[in-house]
Structures are given as structure tokens and as C-alpha cells.
């Protein structure tokens, strides 16, 4: 610190604590609300714990998410996990090998291919939603895990990141590998993969959050609730006449849908920050 100003320091802490509390406020309300009976929401949202916590959570997790969604949330959690991990591993795998080809080989149309991958940045699913839906419908991929995962795994961001990472590696590595008689496949698995561990882990954190939080895509391509994912199912629980919303169940489901990605961010904070900063380079 440049100089000692105790009041300013106190003020800084005060602002930070206020910020933390305001940011946490909605989660607090959801947490205490998840322990209330449905009737407790008649006049106002309760601001302190009720006594229905265990019942609500176990009912939602193992029995049914709510009266409009007769499917236990553990099943939706499982679907979300399959989708998120599928998207994450898929993205990392195909981006890594395409970045590998672009950096370590010279072949005709190399830069054209690079531009085709770049173009995907300009076509987020939100802007081409109707035609993409029609393509999936034509391919008979509605209501399937492959329909949830495959369209999401092309990634310009991840390809760029791995390209940067590979380009920073010394060329002598390739030379040494070639002298020792290692081919490209061997080089990839024995040298490149171990050397990019941290980058892969950082990408994993970012892509897991991206995959888990998909909303619009699962919403339009799943009509069969065995393929519902947790985040999108919340829409279903809210689409009831005003006043009939089972707020306690909605809050349990919302919290359950938040816990896995928040745990990843908090538990792997260093990798998360690295992934975030790298992804924007």
C-alpha cells in the first residue's frame, strides 16, 4: 500500500462486503425458500428458514420436480451431466486435433480451413435457431443425446486457444521427436498432450460451464421429458398460471441446477481464471 489511510481501508472493506451480500441476496432467498411449505408463499416470500427442507429436497430430487414436471430431478441432473461432459470432451477433442493439424502440418487449403472454423464464431446458435432446428429434425436427432451434444461441439474459441498454445512450443521438440523416430501420432500423445495439461484443464472448466448452462437449444429440441436438462426444465415449472407456481420446488430445482457449475468455478478458481483470460486472447 502506498500510504496508510485506515478510513479508506475500512471503506473498501465496507463496499466489498456490501457487494458480496447484494450478489448473494437472491441465492439466500432461494435457499431459505427451498425449506418452506408451498403455503408459506401466499403473502410474501419468507426470508428465514422453514422446516420443510429435507422433505422438499428429497421430494424434488427423488420423486418429482413439481406437479407440471413429473420426473425426479436426479434424472435431469444426469441428463445435464451427460450433455455438459459430452460437449466439453467433444469440444476439447476436436479442437485439439484440428489445432494440431493447423500448427504442425503444412497442407493445401490450410488457411481456408482455418477461416471456416473462424466463421463459426459469427454464427451463434441464437441467431440461426430456426434453420438449425430444421436440420436437426431432418437428421432425426430431436429428443436424443447426440442432438443435445453434437451441434454444440464445434468451437473456434477452443481451436484458437490450442493453436496459440501449440505455436508457443519450441520447434526443436518436433525435430527431436523426428530424430528419435516418433511419428505425429506418437508425438501428439507422448509430448503434446502432457505438455498442454494445464490448458486442457482450464478449457475444461470454461466449456463445462458453457455446456451445463445451455438453455435455448435443449428447450427447442427436447419434447420428451426423459431428455430434459435441468436448466431448461425450470421453464416448465414456471409455465403455469400466475399464483400456482410451486415456489419451494422451483427454488430447490434452481439451486440444484446451480450447484455443479458453481462448485467447479469455486473449486478450480485458478484454472477458471486462466481459462477465462486465455479464451479472450
Amino acid at each position, binding site marked *: 500500500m502506498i500510504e496508510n489511510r485506515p478510513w479508506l481501508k475500512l471503506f473498501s472493506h465496507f463496499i466489498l462486503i456490501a457487494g458480496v451480500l447484494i450478489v*448473494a441476496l437472491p441465492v439466500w432467498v432461494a435457499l431459505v425458500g427451498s425449506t418452506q411449505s408451498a403455503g408459506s408463499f401466499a403473502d410474501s416470500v419468507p426470508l428465514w428458514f422453514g422446516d420443510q427442507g429435507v422433505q422438499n429436497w428429497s421430494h424434488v430430487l427423488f420423486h418429482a420436480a413439481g406437479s407440471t414436471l413429473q420426473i425426479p430431478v436426479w434424472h435431469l441432473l444426469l441428463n445435464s451431466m451427460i450433455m455438459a461432459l459430452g460437449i466439453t470432451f467433444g469440444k476439447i477433442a476436436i479442437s485439439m486435433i484440428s489445432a494440431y493439424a493447423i500448427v504442425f502440418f503444412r497442407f493445401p487449403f490450410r488457411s481456408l480451413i482455418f477461416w471456416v472454423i473462424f466463421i463459426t464464431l459469427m454464427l451463434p446458435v441464437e*441467431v440461426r435457431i430456426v434453420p438449425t432446428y430444421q436440420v436437426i429434425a431432418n437428421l432425426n436427432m430431436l429428443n436424443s443425446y447426440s442432438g443435445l451434444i453434437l451441434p454444440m461441439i464445434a468451437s473456434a474459441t477452443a481451436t484458437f486457444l490450442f493453436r496459440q498454445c501449440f505455436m508457443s512450443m519450441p520447434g526443436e521438440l518436433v525435430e527431436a521427436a523426428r530424430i528419435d523416430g516418433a511419428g505425429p501420432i506418437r508425438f501428439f500423445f507422448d509430448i503434446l498432450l502432457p505438455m498442454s495439461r494445464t490448458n486442457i484443464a482450464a478449457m475444461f472448466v470454461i466449456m463445462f460451464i458453457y455446456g451445463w*448452462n445451455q438453455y435455448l437449444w435443449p428447450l427447442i429440441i427436447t419434447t420428451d421429458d426423459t431428455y430434459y436438462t435441468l436448466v431448461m426444465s425450470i421453464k416448465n415449472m414456471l409455465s403455469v398460471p400466475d399464483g400456482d407456481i410451486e415456489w419451494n420446488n422451483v427454488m430447490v430445482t434452481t439451486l440444484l441446477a446451480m450447484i455443479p*457449475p458453481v462448485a467447479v468455478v469455486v473449486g478450480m478458481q485458478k484454472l477458471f481464471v486462466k481459462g477465462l483470460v486465455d479464451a479472450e486472447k
Partner: protein
Amino acid sequence: MSVYFPQKKLPYLLVLPQLIITAIFFLWPAGQAFKQAFYREDAFGLSQTFIGFGNFIDLFQDPLYYKSMGVTMVFSFSVAFFGIAIALWLAVMADRVIRGKMAYQTLLVWPYAVAPALAGVLWWILFDPNIGPIALFLDRIGIHWNHFLNGDQAMILVVIAATWKQISYNFLFFLAGLQAIPRSLIEAAAIDGAGPFKRFWDIVFPLLSPTTFFLLVVNLVYAFFDTFGVIDTTTQGGPDGSTNTLVYKVFKDGFIGLDSGGSAAQSIVLMAIVGLMTVVQFRFIERKVQY
């Protein structure tokens, strides 16, 4: 790098999966959107008539489209402005404290992981006109809150929910930016008698301007395209189109209005906007590298 593997066919095999996915799920639909934008489909989807630029002409004569553009502007710039201002303030404070910096960071960054749709639900609960604690408090001090009926209040709600999620991201980038400012500069200013506020406005803030500009672009892109969930779970574009952003309108017209030509024309316009923003983002990053 100047050493390459000599194989000729292997690299094509390696890029193939990415290219197949891109072709099927990106290029094909984008091509379809281009085609549909020039056709009009009847209500049953049985026949298509080529109408040239008809869909685009309709679009740019539609007052609702201009309204949606205005809504998108107000929404995006509000989210970017408040997200950046609040995050910068918090980051400057966090940069001052020595004890507990890491704890503050953890407690401020987790909302990044919350899905936009869930952020919408969480803030709806607080602002529910009948039972939400904040809405009830506002009622008591004389502000009648009902975001289902009042367009401005609906806009405020979606801006709050979208900003809440974005503060964490901006905070991390500002904190990194602040830590990169050489201490000697600040010390020199302090020796010359500049107080903390003067130092912030004359030294810190100008030095952060590349970060701020970068965040402005990223935040606008976020507000444009990643906030679909916030709007869909809370206001669904209403009341009376007051939160109907361009991205939400594409979905609404295409899936609920079943106007595939109009929706495709809107998709094309949006693709042009994303393209422009991507170029700006990359241009800017190139410049940053030259420092």
C-alpha cells in the same frame, strides 16, 4: 515454428471432425437461413414462393422491428454500463485491501457459473409483484412494482438479472488490469501529493482504458446473444414488446409466429451484426498485442 511433419493425408483427417460438425450444424443452417430469407412460406409450410428481398423490405418497414432494435440498444448498453461501472468499483476496492482479497474474489466470481435462465428466476422471485420482498418494499415506499404490466420495470428487471451475472467476469478482468499497473507510477503520483481519487482518475482509469474498451465489446456481445434465458424465464419479451430484443424476436417470430421467412431475414441481419462485432473485437485485440 519451422519444423513440420511431412504427412500429407493425416492433417485432413485431423481437421475432418471439426469441419463435418461445422458444415452440418453451422454452414448448412446458415445457408438455409439465406435461402428462406428470400422465400415466403404459406401457413402450413407446404409451398414456398420466391419473393426476392420482400422479407427484408417488410422487415425494415415494420415499426415493431425498430422498436425491438431500440429495446436491444437500451438493454445492451445498460447491462454493459452498469456491469462495467460496478465491477470497476469493486475491483478498485479489492485492489486496495491486502487481507481477504482471495476470499472477496471467490465470493464475487461465482455468479459467472449461474445459467442466465436461472439468474432470471432468482431475480423474479425478489421482484414478484405479489410476494417478492423487493417489490413489497418498493410498494411500501410508494413505487408500485409490476413488471408484468409495466414495460420500464420489466426492462429494469432483465437488466438487473443480466448485469448481476456479468459483474463477476468484468471484476476479474479489472482486477488483473489493476495488478498490471506499475506500482512506481502510483507511488510517484502519491509523492507528488495526489490523493487516492486524483490518482484513480488521472492514472489508473486511463491506464485501464484498453481493458474497459475490451470489456465494453464483450459485454455488448453478451447482452446481445447470451441473455436469451434471462428474458425467456422472466418477461418473454413483454409486456407489449418492451423487452423483446432482436435475438428473442427471431425465436418468437420463427417458433411461435411460424413466420420462417421473416425470422430468417432477421437471422441474416443478426449474423451481419455478430460479424461486425467479431471483427471489432479482433481488430482491437491485434492492437493490444502491439503495445
